[in-house]
């Protein structure tokens, strides 16, 4: 099992002044697995992502990415270097596409570093020398692959801002995948999607895990997504880990139920409501 680990978070603490957003958090995410991080609002989930992807420098702790070429310490890497060379890619809670550019351009920008190198930092590219032309057509092939995968091939030349909301979500995932990451961090990818779209999202994420072999870290409130596709669930509350395990174990963990629903006060609830809460944790 140990050689299967992809991300190791050890004693991660993040303080903003007096506020402790994450308190001594340790967990592990494995290769070819979808690891979900859930928890009530304000539990510190997005802060974990921001630490992982270099937007914040953690106050304490160690973040190790076990990429193919050996372990890397993410907390010591400059933010914009983290996605490079099979690093960590991410999507955002509020979609951040390049809305004025076309769908295809969004995917090509994501392959910036490879193309930049091929164009000899623009010097060779200026005169369209051989290597760059080849690299660009490869980049277009990669983009086409992901366009087909997320079902946006027909809309490739649209402005990204003109896509419907669900397609924008999928495009953001495709864009992150175009950086060729070994870990993909998804910040609430199912937010605002209708049931059919979230079912499609499940298929997409499973395919990213199984076909591309990329590990996913997933923040999500939509339990239909979390429980169906994750291999491993971590529950945060007030910056602390309160549960860690496979979906079924977490679902029935009393600490988790308490965090989401407050202290159990069965006698004050009408019996049918109490029964619903116990039988169907997906309901909320």
């Amino acid at each position, binding site marked *: 099992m140990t050689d299967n680990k992809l991300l190791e978070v050890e004693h991660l603490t993040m303080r903003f002044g007096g506020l402790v957003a994450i308190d001594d958090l340790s967990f592990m995410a494995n290769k070819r697995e979808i690891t979900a991080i859930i928890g009530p609002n304000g539990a510190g989930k997005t802060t974990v992502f921001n630490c992982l*992807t*270099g*937007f914040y420098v953690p106050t304490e702790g160690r973040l190790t990415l076990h990429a193919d070429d050996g372990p890397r310490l993410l907390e010591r890497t400059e*933010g*914009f*270097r*983290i*996605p*490079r060379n099979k*690093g960590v*890619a*991410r999507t*955002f809670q509020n979609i*951040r*596409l*390049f*809305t*004025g*550019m*076309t769908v*295809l*351009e969004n995917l*090509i*920008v*994501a*392959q*910036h*570093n490879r*193309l*930049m190198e091929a*164009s000899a*930092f*623009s010097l060779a*590219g*200026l005169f369209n020398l051989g290597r*760059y032309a080849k690299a660009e057509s490869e980049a*277009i092939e990669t983009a*086409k692959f992901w*366009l087909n995968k997320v079902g946006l*091939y*027909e809309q*490739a*030349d649209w*402005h990204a801002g003109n896509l419907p909301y669900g397609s924008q979500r999928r495009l953001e995932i495709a*864009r*992150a995948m175009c*950086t060729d990451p070994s870990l993909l961090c998804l910040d609430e990818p199912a937010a605002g999607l209708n049931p059919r779209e979230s079912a499609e999202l499940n298929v997409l994420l499973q395919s990213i895990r199984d076909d591309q072999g990329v590990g996913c870290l997933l923040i999500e409130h939509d339990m239909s997504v979390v429980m169906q596709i994750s291999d491993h669930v971590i529950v945060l509350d007030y910056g602390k880990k309160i549960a860690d395990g496979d979906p079924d174990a977490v679902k029935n963990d009393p600490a988790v139920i308490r965090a989401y629903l407050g202290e159990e006060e069965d006698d004050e609830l009408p019996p049918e409501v109490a029964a619903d809460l116990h039988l169907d944790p997906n309901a909320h």
Partner: protein
Amino acid sequence: MASAFASSRTNGPEVVKELAFFAVIALMMSVMILGVETVDRPTGLELAVRWDLVLLAIGSTVVGRLGLIFRRENISRLGQAILITVSAVAVFEMFVRFRDMDDRWASPVFLDMAFSSVVSVIVSIAFLAIIFAAAYFSMKDKTAVEVDESAKLSSKIQLMYRSNTKKIGLIGIIFFIIFPFIFGEDRSAIDLATLVMIYIMLGWGLNIVVGLAGLLDLGYVAFYAVGAYSYALLSQNFDLSFWLCLPLAGIFAASFGIVLGFPVLRLRGDYLAIVTLGFGEIIRVVLINWYDLTGGPDGISSIERPSFFGMAEFSRRVPEGSIGFGELFGMDYSSMHRLIFLYYLILALALVTNFVTMRLRKLPIGRAWEALREDEIACRSLGINPTNTKLSAFAIGAMFGGFAGAFFATRQGFISPESFTFLESAVILAIVVLGGMGSQIGVVLAAIVMIGFPEMFRELAEYRMLIFGAGIVAIMLWRPRGLLSFRDPTILLNMSQKEKVAGEMK
């Protein structure tokens, strides 16, 4: 009157109220500016009142407003046209009086300026006819069909422009190349064209920074100054030729861009604009005060003119050991040769700027600039180094500014800090914004409008500024994002440019 409004939303008293409201506004706006005038009398400064001007201002406002109400309420098109014409004539009369205010006391005028001779009569009748026709035909009945048709026409023009940008650009280049053959003997035309071309080049250079990378730079003229002084100083102190100094000037300007960029590019938006503005001023102040090196406010004079690629000289008295340009091509000496050569030189430099920009846009660096303009955080999450990307935009923009500066120095033969004030930065930025951020052809149009027109209409003296102001207001109203504010994709997968544009129009 009341019956005319009976069927519509607005009734008589409301119209009177609206007109009164605009009359009061016109009164407030005109009373201080038009209504009083300081007159220098032997007894000292005195205030003279000009109620006729104020009345004309109020009258034209009220009549014009009435025309707009007629238009809104769909009352007789002829009535609308007459009212708007009357209003325009009143405005014209106001200008005539305003211009003649000094002799006004001798003979009160009522359009007598315009009617003083037969030619003037014809001109003024034509003027009235044009206003009337324009007013009449622009008043359309606001039926859905017609609105649709005008929208269709504008989208047709857009489609034509956007699917033929290459052809339009080519026609423009050919026009500028044959320009000296048309106006070859007209010195002022060549001078003006050269001036416009300098600003086109500066506009294209700044377009990289502002239009593509989205970094608001209010101190672009600093790089222009660095280029100009680099050439002037290198040529005077080390006797280097223009052709060697041209690349050096670009390199110096780019280095200044990098030096400035490192500390300030972590700032964004307004803060970046303020710091670049400060940098522009620092350069100017240093140029004024470093007397030993730059000559301070005296500037640097008799800067060497460029030779014909080192092969021939353009001056009348050719120095020992070299030959004149005319001699080289078997022509008589003409002072126009150098001017036309300089024109072609700046044309070539500008075209190089354009070519490099167009090419960079399709390269990863150009796409990264545009992505950075759209969303910096997303760029970071994709592994793009924001600092380096911004710096490269800044440096390349600065480099072209430096080239233009070296050219400016060699063309003028004299430079001083006077030429590099904030106003220049503002003009260049205005060209970029007016043209439509990121649009190359837009910059050309804007440079012609901003630099060419004021020079061409010099006779109009201070009215130029008035017309200029009106033009800016018109742009803000109808094309708030610039003349040609379309972004064309750098790459298309399964559509042609024409289909893409047509799809957007739908």
